[in-house]
């Protein structure tokens, strides 16, 4: 049985429906990411898993048992909060010990656990400080330590890195991943940051408006986004969405791309099953890295702007009257005003229905 199963969970306040039927199941030891823009219901879902809020309908299973009526403290979980939620009047040691004290862990055992956790997170020297005397990163560490001391079957992380500066965030991200490898505990991790989602997760649930848009592995979600929203949310810079019409040429289905008055038919093998929809308005999704600079056969595109990031250079241009970004090798990128000839790698391109925004192919 899975470590965590959420079955048809809904949550409403009066007429406001925060969650509209969530189903998720993960295996023991997996790292689940709940990702989505703010207001998508991911934090509510997290609170329901933790038992801090109760679902309107549906069931939550943790470690194989239904926990709907189990108090948070009895669910065998630990949580790290965005604001860390360290008790400001207690020092680090007391912060970590508080939960154990409540559960009646003997003093000696408490000390051992604190020592072990402190060592694991390299914060021995911080144990006697108050939270106000710690830096952001240190606080984050203490918050994790508090959760670790619990030794739970399920870790919950509620946007734990969003209050850190960029460099620290990357460091801690790695550290959390290492921790997960070492401990093999199941983790549920809420974030709005798609890089965190991609780098950390075994499974990602992309949420919007109280609905799971897609649930799958990071690669699945990246390569085969279920809809326009998922495609736009995951990946940075975002996927390019080019409106076009489905056309047929030489018995192949494809779309036409225009640039600088020049049009070119691009055949899409994956669209083969869409024969009945010729002439329909669709949206072609191409990720920036799926453009190659080629010779004369490429589509001439005028460069508007370039954004070098070091390893790559983002080139902004226009296709079908839409701003399009291509990730190019710096050597191949030209300066603004110049023309580059681009060839999309259609094998990985996706097609969305312009109306429903669902993926067609």
């Amino acid at each position: 049985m899975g470590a965590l199963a959420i079955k048809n969970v809904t949550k409403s306040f009066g007429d406001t429906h925060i969650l509209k039927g969530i189903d998720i199941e993960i295996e023991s030891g997996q790292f689940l990411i709940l990702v989505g823009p703010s207001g998508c219901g991911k934090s509510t879902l997290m609170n329901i898993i933790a038992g801090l809020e109760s679902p309107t309908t549906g069931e939550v299973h943790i470690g194989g048992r239904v926990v709907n009526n189990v108090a948070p403290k009895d669910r065998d979980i630990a949580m790290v909060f965005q604001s860390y939620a360290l008790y400001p009047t207690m020092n680090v040691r007391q912060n970590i010990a508080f939960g154990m004290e409540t559960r009646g862990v003997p003093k000696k055992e408490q000390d051992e656990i604190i020592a072990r956790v402190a060592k694991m997170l390299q914060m021995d020297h911080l144990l006697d400080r108050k939270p106000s005397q710690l830096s952001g990163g240190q606080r984050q560490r203490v918050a994790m330590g508090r959760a670790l001391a619990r030794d739970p079957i399920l870790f919950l992380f509620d946007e734990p890195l969003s209050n850190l500066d960029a460099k620290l965030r990357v460091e801690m991200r790695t550290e959390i991943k290492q921790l997960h490898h070492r401990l093999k505990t199941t983790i549920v991790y809420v974030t709005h940051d798609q890089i965190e989602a991609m780098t950390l997760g075994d499974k990602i649930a992309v949420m919007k408006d109280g609905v799971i848009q897609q649930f799958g592995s990071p690669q699945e979600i990246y390569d085969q986004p279920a809809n326009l929203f998922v495609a736009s949310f995951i990946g940075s810079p975002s996927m390019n969405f080019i409106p076009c019409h489905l056309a047929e040429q030489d018995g192949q289905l494809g779309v036409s791309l225009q640039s600088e008055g020049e049009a070119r038919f691009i055949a899409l093998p994956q669209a083969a099953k869409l024969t009945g929809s010729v002439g329909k308005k669709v949206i072609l999704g191409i990720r920036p890295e799926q453009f190659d600079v080629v010779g004369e056969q490429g589509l001439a595109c005028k460069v508007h702007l370039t954004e070098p990031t070091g390893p790559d250079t983002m080139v902004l241009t226009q296709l079908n009257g839409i701003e399009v970004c291509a990730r190019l090798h710096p050597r191949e990128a030209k300066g603004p005003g110049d023309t580059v000839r681009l060839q999309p790698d259609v094998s990985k391109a996706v097609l969305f229905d312009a109306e429903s925004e669902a993926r067609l192919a």
Partner: protein
Amino acid sequence: MSNPTQSAHYGFAERWLPRLVLAPSFLLTILFVYGFIAWNGYLSFTSSRLLPNFEWAGLVQYQALFESERWWVAVKNLFIFGGLFIGGAMAVGIFLAILLDQKIRGEGALRTIYLYPMALSFIVTGTAWKWMLNPGLGLEKLMHDWGFANFTFDWLVNPDTSIYTVVIAAMWQSSGFVMALFLAGLRGIDDSIIKAAQIDGASLPRIYWKIILPALRPVFFSTLMILCHIAIKSFDLVMALTGGGPGFASDVPATFMYAMAFTRGQTGLGAASATMMLMTVAAIVVPYLYSELRGNRNA
């Protein structure tokens, strides 16, 4: 693992304990505030004289109240007093708060000096104020002694002006508190806003007027509420300073009610005036509470 006691405990703690904890205060409030308001409301429709009785008498007390010249003097005074006092205390308090916010040496001591009148009962300071404002004993005499023979300051004993002495004393008592509230608010404002405005070339007064004070809107409103409530309930102050006099020239609704219900055997009339006071308070406070609590829900 999941046992029923635990889930019961969860339900209890989550649902019933908070209500249980709040219950005593809730009941006390229902009984001792709303019960008594209802009691008073009922009394206002009776012919209660010396002591409360419960014989229904209709609207006679309200009729008597609206025909009473003294009541209208009291109402007028409340508006004069309320307007001047609230405006004055607010202006002085804000002004002092701004001055004190300029990194003043000895701020702590000055703050205490401005705030201490709040600590004193008017039963205490009324004696001193009465003395100072009395033309024959206080400031006027002092000025005469110092050779300003034409100086007159007889507001206390002049029926047209005695209410203003109440304003002076009330401002003395409350403006320090206003200062403290606004100073607290000013300290909570991000310095960078001031810096940004200074870079924009705004002068200091302009910065306060255009940027900082508007940012203190919440403080402003809560202070306004506190002052309104002091003004409407002002009783000790008037009793100690003028006793509502000369005559009933400085009567306010609170003293009117007290005089009718307690000194004179007109409990019913007193109850009617109290009901009018309560309705005034409700008219001011209820919309405020409503918006305040709605605001909190959205936040």
